[in-house]
């Protein structure tokens, strides 16, 4: 049996670990609240804008703007969003697993061009044989909007020049404080992905358009289509990237809070087990001492 001293030392050590995990949990909880507010505020605008862009993509010819061009099986760009810091449970591993699964299931034959956001993602992907083109670390230290533009602008440029034919983003979507889900979202081109109305419209065109079908009329653009699309599409992709960074940040704090809560509870269990063990050992020592005294007295 471990000596009294050893057990005592372990109890002290686990207790100090528990203090740290508890403090981290509390910090994560307060950061979570702030980032949760931020994502809830950021979403409506981003969603409305995405809908607008989808609805434009549905109407406009893909040739009207380079960001609407549908690819033909060329390179695929992937943006992987992870955190800079660890101790947040499966947060980063989940993203990386999601990335690997997507690659295996959907892009096994395609050439990839990967952009990694977050130190942990960089570390986790280093060992894998992937074509990582750019990495971004410490984006949450400055204004997020600038970071989003910084990350996405090169990718957009590359897409415009035909370097990539599609761009996806893998990130943790914020569901609630205790739930994050890895999401694979297509950033470019803006054509609606498997949109049923798009197929219906195509079918209608082929069949000479039935009367009940909602007529899809192109917008009247002012001042002109090119100018609006250029501004709107570039703005949209930045806004989407911005939203994704917020999603990921809120998810990270949520994941860390959950992980640290579990760790704190686990430490509590270890402490009570060790305390029990300590008390037993102490009791044994006392009993042994008594027996020695008694048997010593008897021997006299």
């Amino acid at each position, binding site marked *: 049996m471990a000596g009294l001293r050893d057990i005592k030392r372990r109890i002290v050590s686990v207790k100090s670990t528990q203090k740290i995990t508890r403090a981290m949990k509390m910090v994560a909880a307060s950061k979570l609240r702030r980032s949760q507010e*931020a994502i809830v*505020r*950021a979403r*409506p*605008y*981003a969603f*409305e*804008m995405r809908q*607008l862009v989808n*609805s*434009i993509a549905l109407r406009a010819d893909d040739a009207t703007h380079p960001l609407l061009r549908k690819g033909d099986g060329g390179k695929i760009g992937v943006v992987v969003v992870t955190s800079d810091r660890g101790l947040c449970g499966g947060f980063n591993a989940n993203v990386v697993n999601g990335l690997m699964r997507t690659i295996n299931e959907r892009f096994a034959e395609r050439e990839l061009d990967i952009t990694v956001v977050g130190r942990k993602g960089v570390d986790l992907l280093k060992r894998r044989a992937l074509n990582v083109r750019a990495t971004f670390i410490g984006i949450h230290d400055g204004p997020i909007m600038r970071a989003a533009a910084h990350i996405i602008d090169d990718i957009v440029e590359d897409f415009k020049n035909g370097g990539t034919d599609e761009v996806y983003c893998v990130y943790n979507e914020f569901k609630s404080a205790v739930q994050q889900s890895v999401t694979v979202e297509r950033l470019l081109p803006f054509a609606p992905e498997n949109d049923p109305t798009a197929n219906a419209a195509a079918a209608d065109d082929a069949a000479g358009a039935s009367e009940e079908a909602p007529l899809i*009329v*192109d*917008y*009247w*653009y*002012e*001042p002109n289509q090119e*100018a*609006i699309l250029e*501004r*709107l599409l570039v703005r949209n992709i930045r*806004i989407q990237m*911005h939203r994704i960074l917020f999603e990921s940040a809120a998810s990270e704090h949520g994941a860390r809070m959950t992980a640290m809560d579990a760790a704190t509870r686990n430490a509590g269990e270890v402490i009570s087990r060790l305390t029990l063990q300590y008390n037993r050992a102490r009791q044994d020592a006392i009993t042994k001492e008594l027996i020695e005294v008694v048997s010593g007295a008897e021997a006299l």
Partner: protein
Amino acid sequence: MDEQTINVVLCAPEKEKTELEAQEVLCPGEDGIFTVRYGHTPYLTTLIPGVVLVKDTKGEEHYFAASGGFAEVHPEKTLILADSYEAGDNVDEERAKAARERAELRLSKPEPETDLGRAELALYRAVARINAASKTGH
């Protein structure tokens, strides 16, 4: 009249949506102010800083200061994606006036490092806020 209303949605980054049922809405488009009523043709335009005036189903007028962005018009729906917007009632008029003075000063005595385009936009934004607050429209 019931089905003749339009659904107006105002939206800006980092801000809650505002949704109103309206008879008509006035927007500061890049090529001029335009009014939208039920049944408008699908229309997409960029906005300049100015006042958005929404007349709701009860005939009440809601003023908003919007600072540029986009407007998407459908027969039954108008979506205003502003870079930022503010209800006229919430505008701090003193601050808006101070902002206008600053912008005017910068424009009247431009220094070499003054970004004239930015100063001009700031002036437009300040004027939009003042107008929205005083409910003068345009």
